[in-house]
């Protein structure tokens, strides 16, 4: 059984990148079984076809524009997900619904599809999440963990306390403010 956890969004546009930040936090905080693959998909389209093909469970994390309070975390499943991306409630142009349609064509679509969505507050230029959305990272990670455990995986926390610097770990190097 292969499960893909896919973080989506543009990290240059503050809360737009929250999906990527959440999956980074997941990897930082938990030891994951080898059958669980975590991918920072950015805003890629066709490039993701190889990654998405033939997974049993697809778990997506992304910013979603719905009429809830910024920082709210929502869960959508299966048929609701492509519909959401089709109407572009997701603020970027991933074309994920197109990718899923292609996988249906090629017979490689995931058996289950779950979206953990976070309602953004600020899509302006910048690398930092807004305070309300930054506060939603932890609950979103826990949603992902609950989903993965629901599939029967066992996950072990890496640290007793999560580090606060999820935005810093990606680049590893020098110059984030």
């Amino acid at each position, binding site marked *: 059984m292969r499960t893909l956890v896919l973080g989506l969004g543009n990290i*240059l546009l503050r809360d737009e990148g929250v999906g990527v930040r959440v999956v980074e936090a997941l990897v930082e905080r938990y030891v994951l079984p080898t059958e669980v693959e975590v991918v920072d998909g*950015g805003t890629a389209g066709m490039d993701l076809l190889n990654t998405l093909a033939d997974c049993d469970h697809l778990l997506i994390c992304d910013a979603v524009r719905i009429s809830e309070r910024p920082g709210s975390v929502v869960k959508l499943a299966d048929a609701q997900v492509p519909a959401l991306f089709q109407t572009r409630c997701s603020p970027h142009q991933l074309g994920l619904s197109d990718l899923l349609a292609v996988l249906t*064509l090629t017979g490689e679509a995931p058996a289950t599809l779950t979206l953990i969505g976070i309602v953004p507050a600020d899509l302006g230029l910048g690398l930092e999440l807004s305070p309300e959305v930054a506060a939603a990272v932890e609950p979103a990670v826990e949603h992902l963990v609950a989903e993965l455990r629901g599939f029967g995986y066992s996950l072990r926390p890496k640290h007793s306390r999560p580090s606060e610097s999820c935005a810093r770990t990606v*680049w590893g190097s*020098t*110059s984030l403010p």
Partner: protein
Amino acid sequence: MTRISIDPITRIEGHLRIDCEVENGKVSRAWSSGQMWRGIEIILQGRDPRDAWVFAQRICGVCTTVHAIVSVRAVENALDLEVPLNAQYIRNLIITAHGIHDHIVHFYQLAALDWVDIVSALSADPAAAAKLGASLSDYRRNGVQEIRQIQDKLKAFVGTGQLGVFASGYWGHPAMKLPPEVNLLAATHYFHALEYQRIANRIVAILGGKTPHIQNLAVGGVANPINPDSQSTLTLERLFAIKAEIDKLGEFVNQAMIPDVAAVGALYADWTQYGAGVTDYLSVPDLPLDTKGTRFELPGGYIAKGDLATFKPITSYQDGYFRDGVKESVKHAWYQYKSGDQARHPYEGQTHPQPTDFHDNGKYSWIKAPGFHGQRAQVGPLANVLAMVAAGHEPTQRHLNRVLTMASSVAGSKIPVEALHSTIGRIAARAVRCAVLLEALQNQWQLLINNIAKGDFDTFNRPVFPKGEVRGFGYHEAPRGVLSHWTVIEDGKIKNYQAVVPSTWNAGPRDDADAPGPYEAALLDNPVANPEQPLEVLRTIHSFDPCIACAVHLMDTERQTSVRVQAI
């Protein structure tokens, strides 16, 4: 007079709006407008130049790799830093495989649906399609069984009522002219293309560590340690795995894609009369063969007024003709230059937004308007193919001749090189370039193997940043054309950073002299049979392979949820 507004143009990355005035069934005036604002330049100011590529590859979801490569080239240029041969070859393999992936996706998944009627393919006779396929090439997957299977799949998919990827096509439009068996053959290869573009992408992933965001770059080289004996490094085993993937790609590009493009082009030969637009062409040389970037596998340069005899090559990473030739105008773009509105060189470039309403004769786009020595220039595979032909590049001449000969034979009359200055010519040139890239990929692979065999394992030279100010530019002949990044570095920190991207060259608005950009010029005199279904406009725009997520940037979050075509 009818005015058409298409917003956003679909099957592209990013937000592009096209406005046309149509008189007597033809486009008489056109406007290309980027509907998002770009701000990467602002994010990079004050940062460590060694990190710039990591941010730059987030500009666009489609072109992550190309921005990463050009960013490190720009910083290396500022430092006059040489790049070890192995690193050049590994980078060359990555960008070449990426280019092939991109060209395949463009033709089959994006542009073809403007010319190939998927619904018509459902009623075609698989035997007729197989016979047609056999007359075009020896491609082993043109058998009647294979074609019938794919037609059945397609029928089942369309039968569900969810057209998905095919939902935005103008099926049954009077401008769709291919016989059903051609539509079916192309639809079959649409499916195959989905497999082969993934092969190209796997090569990028093996060398780059990950896709969509490669991780192996560094200012000064690459982070792939080479050790033929160690499991954790770039081993011979992995290199030979790449070679096997390259061979599979070759079969598809040469035996399916090239014949498809030639046949579709020949059957739409009337489209060689439309869409020329700006025939000043700019491309840059690529795939450096030495550590300094003075010799390249693929040539590039400037061609004036469509005349190959005027070709002036760009010859190195220090080339002054290129460096001094680029300026960007904001007279018709939603920006303001602090010292008046004259076009500025990217080193002096500014990014101060100044939004207004859409003014036909004033500002109407978030894309700046670049020029080369004062002229608008078209960039992209057509510009590059013409330059390579003018430079006498043998593989390009050979593949171009193949396409023209095949197309002439299908059309029953000779199609000359001049036919390339057109909408269909841009699509044909992209296929030619794809075949050229494939040979280059094989060659670069061999060069890397030979160099490692000599015992050279170097992949990285450490960058050293001086006190004071240095400037550098980097360029790359990306799938959509010339991409350049320009940076001013002061005391080891980025002081200014500007990206002049391919779609800025092509999709830019009018310039300081009110000269239209390539999209705008190419649309003039395009036929439009039905303003409510402006398929012909889409054909010309899609032939450029628009991808404007990096030309502009997301700003307006309250976009409409579906495509709006307005005929006023």
